[in-house]
């Protein structure tokens, strides 16, 4: 009896330890993003190959990115942004960024696996999410600060925003390079190929949707016709 109890306790304590360990790992991986954005070459390599990053952290960054984006539309001073608040749908705004992001990840994975890319889908997704960190770190404070700026001082705001975007683009480039173990030229080509691939994916999905809706529409109208005849 007591032995069983102690065994149960042992398992429980093991679980707690594991939970604690994964929590520390998650925290470490969050903090590691600061290393990644300042030392992208080593950072991205270790992120994937030394397992310094976690998927949970990647999800967090993607979520924060979307949150900052929505917050930017709502909280920025009206002097610097044209956001018709009465028309903004938060979910729509978030989805309009998250879906292209995922489609691009998928397209990149689909293209690079065919051409000796080392990265798995998980790696690509993780690298892309970590590359969004400067956007979060710069834009969120700028959104708050914008409320203390006048129209003439708006250049600070725009400059900082463009810095964050350029930094992100640079990180995406390096990240993909490290993940796939490509050279810069090949990465560049595959960036373009990725965009084309994303377009193809969108085209296929849209075609599928419209065909499906046509097919269903046929049965719906058939049903309506029959009901109409019967009564």
């Amino acid at each position: 009896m007591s032995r069983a109890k102690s065994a149960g306790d042992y398992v429980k304590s093991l679980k707690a330890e594991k939970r604690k360990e994964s929590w520390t790992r998650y925290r470490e991986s969050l903090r590691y993003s600061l290393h990644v954005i300042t030392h992208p070459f080593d950072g991205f390599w270790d992120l994937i190959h030394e397992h310094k990053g976690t998927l949970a952290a990647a999800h967090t960054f993607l979520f924060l990115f979307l949150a900052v984006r929505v917050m930017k539309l709502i909280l920025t001073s009206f002097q610097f942004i044209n956001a018709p608040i009465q028309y903004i749908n938060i979910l729509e705004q978030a989805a309009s960024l998250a879906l292209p992001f995922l489609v691009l990840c998928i397209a990149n994975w689909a293209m690079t696996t065919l051409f000796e890319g080392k990265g798995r889908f998980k790696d690509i997704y993780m690298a892309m999410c970590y590359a969004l960190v400067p956007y979060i770190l710069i834009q969120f404070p700028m959104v708050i600060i914008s409320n203390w700026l006048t129209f003439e001082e708006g250049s600070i705001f725009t400059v900082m925003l463009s810095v964050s975007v350029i930094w992100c683009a640079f990180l995406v480039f390096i990240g993909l390079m490290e993940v796939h173990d490509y050279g810069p030229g090949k990465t560049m080509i595959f960036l373009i190929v990725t965009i084309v691939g994303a377009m193809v994916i969108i085209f296929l999905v849209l075609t599928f949707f419209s065909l499906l809706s046509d097919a269903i529409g046929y049965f719906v109208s058939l049903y309506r016709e029959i009901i109409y005849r019967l009564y």
Partner: protein
Amino acid sequence: MKKAISFLLILMMLLSLSTAMADDSYSMKQDGFSTSYAYCYDYWGDVQESPNPYRVSEVIDSISLGLDKLEGKRMNKPQSLFVHGNDLYIADTFNNRILQVHYDGKEYSLTRVISQINGAEPATFNNPYDIAVDDDENIYVADYMNYRVVMMDKDLNFIKQFVKPEDSTYDQSLDFLPKKIAVDVAGRLYVLGANINKGFIKYEADTTFTGYIGANAVSFNMAQYIWRRYFMTQEQRAASQSFAPTEYENLYMDEEGFIYATNTIFSEYDLKTDKANPIRRLNSLGNDILIKNDRYPPIGDIYWLAEGTQYYGPTRFTDITVLKNDIYVALDRTRGRLFGYDGQGILLWAFGTRGNVEGAFTSAISLEHMGYDLFVLDQVENSITVFTPTEYGQMIYDANETYMNGEYDRSAEIWQDVMRMNSNYPLAFRGIGRAILRQDDYEGAMKYFEMAHDRQNYGRAFKLYRKEWVEKNILWIILVLAALLIIPLVIGRMKRAKWEVIMHEQSKIRR
């Protein structure tokens, strides 16, 4: 994995079902603002209905002028109006005469029918398209089919005429067809000639031709140029349209001697990207100096329906007139609308429609003003509709006027009244904001500027407000900053002290 795919498929099916089931009888209203008579655009470009700024006070036609009794000849496709003092001149083009109508404060009565010039050769008009009167009451008539602009004194004695310029810059194979004219204070004459695309033809007072003014800039891009230069044959190049500037539609000389010109030939793309400049204010060098301080340039309606509906396409201004304080009103022939703008290029109001009822036009062609009253000439109905400002319209003018005169408090009061009548009017918010900013109420001004979406002025008010706030709270700011500096320092010290104690204890144990 299989589960996920099937879930996705079901989700897609459901989504498609919902689109397929959607009722397809949903349709847009044919015209977004057909139900409202007067409107204005807000910051987002949405139509905001507004009270009527004008109402019809009278319709002048052949019968009310007594033309049917006089000669039995009613007006026949009149083309232009001109107002001088209390006299309204009508170019009754296809009857080859000019009608002079006097307004005595109550009613409009025909005072003179001008169809003969004493001492001119020929002495009669042939399709007079436009008319202008200078300060000495000399009358200028654009005598279209006689290829001249004829000038006579107020007793109709011939003085001089302006004919085709004998100059190498004028293509001598073209007839001189004066369509619209304007005269400045010095007696210089500006002529809009049919089939002339170099701008307005300019004459000195002594009838000498001195060149063109305000030619439309020819615009083409690099791709077009390369395509024409290297990929087209000689014949193709000749057959295709050359990079030619376009003709103007109308002109108006304001009190300060600037020419307001309207232009109706442009591509919709240029109009939307503010390259077409359908309304221009030309200085003596022919440069466009119109002020455009609004989010939307003065192009009339900022969105429109494409082909396939009854009245489609962008606004095309067929005439323009300039009131006091640089407020200008332009007449749209596409939908028979009038657009009023202030000196900053901000839309004051828009109203009017096409149709046969009072206040609507079948084919509006000319616009003039007497004080704040507007006259609109309809060339098919052969009638002139007189619009008088309502209380609301008059208040807008008064608010502008008082602001221009520096009576900011009075202006704010009037804008408050305007706001009470129309709470969707950005200009009222801006007007109140500007006035109370001058009374040093920064926070209040910020509130109004934010409602009006006026960024420059908001920035100005906010700067002052921020300065005041910092000065008031300087003590707290310093305290907070100091705290932010000191607290981490103290914490660091404490941590280090603790660490040293632990190290000391450990070293004791080891020993």
